[in-house]
């Protein structure tokens, strides 16, 4: 079976999901930072609230797409999902619990606004922000696992050590790199949103610049942990490492070359760092904020594409080789391309309308109303 279409479907859904999830996590932290600032400066309450409402809008989209990924993965790559759910049982349970805490704490943060003492509300907000990290804390194990399948001892029958799976050396740098990336993207999304609001209310302009600064500065720890991740791959996932560096280093054993995607991500990150600082000093230049948010998403997309395409033609990397994508494709039925393509087109079309409506009525309407 040709795996191109299933890979494209998975890729598109995954990229949309990851974009919104990252924006969402970062917005949670920025809302809490602004809430904390508002304890000494009441003027900051307004932007804190606006940022939180952005968060709620993106939570809905990321949730919808999270559901889609589960169905797409289980439907098109059933055996891979079965392996992952058995070996990574504990991390996935962490993510499920994280989802519960995240949703309940978002609701709690919303309804306790101005109803409890500010410091108590801040504590609820911190719980909400931190709970956003627990979801990728579980799911990032899947990416670490397919880079380096620690814990898997047998494919037939599927067996392994669920505790040993937790010790995957690829996981810590990947996770921390993800955290800083999410903060950067979310802060820059907040910056763009506040820059938009600043047309009507100049007081939020400063906090747009502040978000750009934080979002830009996050590139530094993200770069450092990225280097850590990159060097870890050289030991534990050499095929992927070779794919990422094929044009720059004398590495031969990868048939895939994603080094320019990787380089593109690095260069965009440098631009983000530079312009983040510039916007902080010149917050009235809203075009910088409008530019930074899509740039950060472009960096995310390039990074994820390099990470995921770099594994091809394998789905799971084992040293300098791997288990091919075809091994895991659904063999239980012939999946009709027409069904997949037409379904995907409808999903993308309605998602675009969904996002536009959320922007028009939730962000523009309600935020301006509040």
């Amino acid at each position, binding site marked *: 079976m040709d795996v191109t279409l299933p890979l494209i479907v998975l890729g598109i859904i995954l990229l949309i999901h990851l974009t919104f999830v990252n924006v969402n996590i970062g917005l949670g932290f920025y809302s809490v930072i602004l809430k904390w600032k508002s304890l000494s400066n009441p003027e900051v309450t307004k932007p804190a609230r606006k940022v939180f409402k952005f968060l709620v809008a993106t939570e809905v989209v990321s949730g919808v797409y999270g559901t889609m990924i589960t169905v797409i993965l289980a439907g098109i790559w059933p055996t891979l999902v079965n*392996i992952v759910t058995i070996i990574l049982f504990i991390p996935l349970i962490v993510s499920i619990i994280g989802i519960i805490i995240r949703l309940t704490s978002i609701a709690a943060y919303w309804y306790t606004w101005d109803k409890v003492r500010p410091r108590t509300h801040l504590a609820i907000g911190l719980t909400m922000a931190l709970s956003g990290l627990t979801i990728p804390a579980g799911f990032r194990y899947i990416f670490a696992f397919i880079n380096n399948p620690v814990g898997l001892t047998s494919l037939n029958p599927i067996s392994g050590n669920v505790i040993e799976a937790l010790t995957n050396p690829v996981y810590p740098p990947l996770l921390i790199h993800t955290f800083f990336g999410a903060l950067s993207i979310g802060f820059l999304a907040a910056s763009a949103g506040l820059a938009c609001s600043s047309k009507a209310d100049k007081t939020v302009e400063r906090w747009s610049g502040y978000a750009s600064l934080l979002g830009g500065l996050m590139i530094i720890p993200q770069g450092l942990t990225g280097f850590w991740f990159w060097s870890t791959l050289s030991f534990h996932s050499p095929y992927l490492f070779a794919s990422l560096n094929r044009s720059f280093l004398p590495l031969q054993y990868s048939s895939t070359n994603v080094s320019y995607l990787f380089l593109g991500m690095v260069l965009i990150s440098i631009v983000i760092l530079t312009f983040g600082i510039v916007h902080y000093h010149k917050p009235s230049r809203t075009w910088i904020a409008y530019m930074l948010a899509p740039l950060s998403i472009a960096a995310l997309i390039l990074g994820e594409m390099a990470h995921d395409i770099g594994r091809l033609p394998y789905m799971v990397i084992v040293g300098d080789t791997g288990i091919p994508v075809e091994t895991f494709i*659904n063999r*239980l039925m012939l999946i009709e391309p027409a069904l997949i393509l037409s379904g995907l087109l409808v999903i993308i079309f309605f998602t675009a309308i969904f996002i536009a409506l959320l922007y028009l009525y939730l962000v523009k309407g309600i935020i301006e109303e509040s």
Partner: protein
Amino acid sequence: MNLRGTLDLSALGIYIHSITVAIVIGFSITLTIIEFLGIRKKDASYIRLAKQLSLVIAIAFVFGAATGTLVEFGLVQVWNGVILAIGSFFFTPLFLELVAFTIEATLLVALLYTWDKFKNPWTHWMITVTYTAGALFSGLLITSVNSWMQAPWGTGEIVKIIYPWAPVYGPTAININFLITVKEVLVSTRVNFAASGASIINPTILNTLFSSYGELLKDPWVSLTSPYALTSIVHQLLATTVVGVFWIAGALAYKGLRKKEKRDYYLRLFKTVALIGSILLIIQGIEGHEQGLMIYIYQPTKFAMISGLEKSGPYVPAGLTIFGDPNYVFKGFDYLLQMSENHPNPSLKIGGVSVKEIALADTLKALEKLPLVKTLYEVKIGLAALSLLISLIIISSFTFKKFWRGKERILLYGGLIMFFVAPAIAGLGWAVREIGRKPWTVYGLLYPEELVTPNPIGPEVTLTIIGGLILGLLITFTTIYLVLKKPPRFLKIGDE
């Protein structure tokens, strides 16, 4: 946690999720009708109620999506073996469900934020109608997935090969050798290694089977063509709608009883909504016959459980409605056991166990559930009779207006009773549906122990999930209460 506990946890998750499903589907139908009446009669009170309903739907939708994700995760994470079905029979309905879900989410935002935005109010109503269609389509697809587990349509005579009392489940849309081999490995793994069969759903086995026999499923649409599924879709969607409608009616009745000065206002709305619920409930009662017929044809053990037929004999309600003969003798468990005993292929073995042994053991396991299922069913029927009576009283208030003048409180109390009775009937019905298909998860084909994760589930995980679900439910209700008390200004809901 043992298998029993895992089943109970899954049931809890599904029940909590179903609360939001009842709100989303039942409220959407009511919203469509109430908005229609509001526009047609130019009645502000109907439009106000419609706006309130749209708000509640939005909140329930968000929580429903969250619990739906948990239920879905639970399915894949705890019942890994179900992946076998997700990759085959469930794929088309679940993929279409993603499309329906996206349309539903988009149109819900559209209908919520376009109130009073169009010059022609019918434009908004069209959004409401399309949204409701999306919600129903979503429910239809998920019901078809559950229905396949009740009657595995497209597997032809496979179940009959093991259980001689079983019917033929439609055309043979599967590769028989592929499925029999999977079943062989599952039984062998369970019997010989006392392990979960989930671990054999791996690339080595499935790719080998594919090389030998080709794909398992030949027709990806087959699960949507099952007569059992089509009947269940109507039955389940009607049941869900009735619950949602009577929750609205019950809430209006409560307000009418509490606020004497506004009683006329609430009574009028209550009567309209309760009439919708009553009509649907009567249709549900008539349709229930079709569902019963499907159980009679496709789930012989469940039919014997429901009718309490440990031994073959008459079952008056079914005898009358199916054959017009109250003395018609239905086949009970004695007959099913007898057929298993006289198995036509006693030498046939699956995973080293003879099919005769399997058929006898499983039929006896099903028999163990008879007292529980029969009791649940009878309580359900009793409550259904009570609700039918209340529904007739509500309908009579439209035809015998003079008689009911001054006695409206009785109607409102009837609405309050239905607030609790309607979900109780649906909940009991679902319990009968799910317990009645035991000892199988996929009727006649797969057991829970073949599908469950090989990993243990600790009490900390169980308690966190239960706590999270309950907390989530409380937050949803609190949110609904607060939002109805102080609705967003942009909706311009207005006063009572």
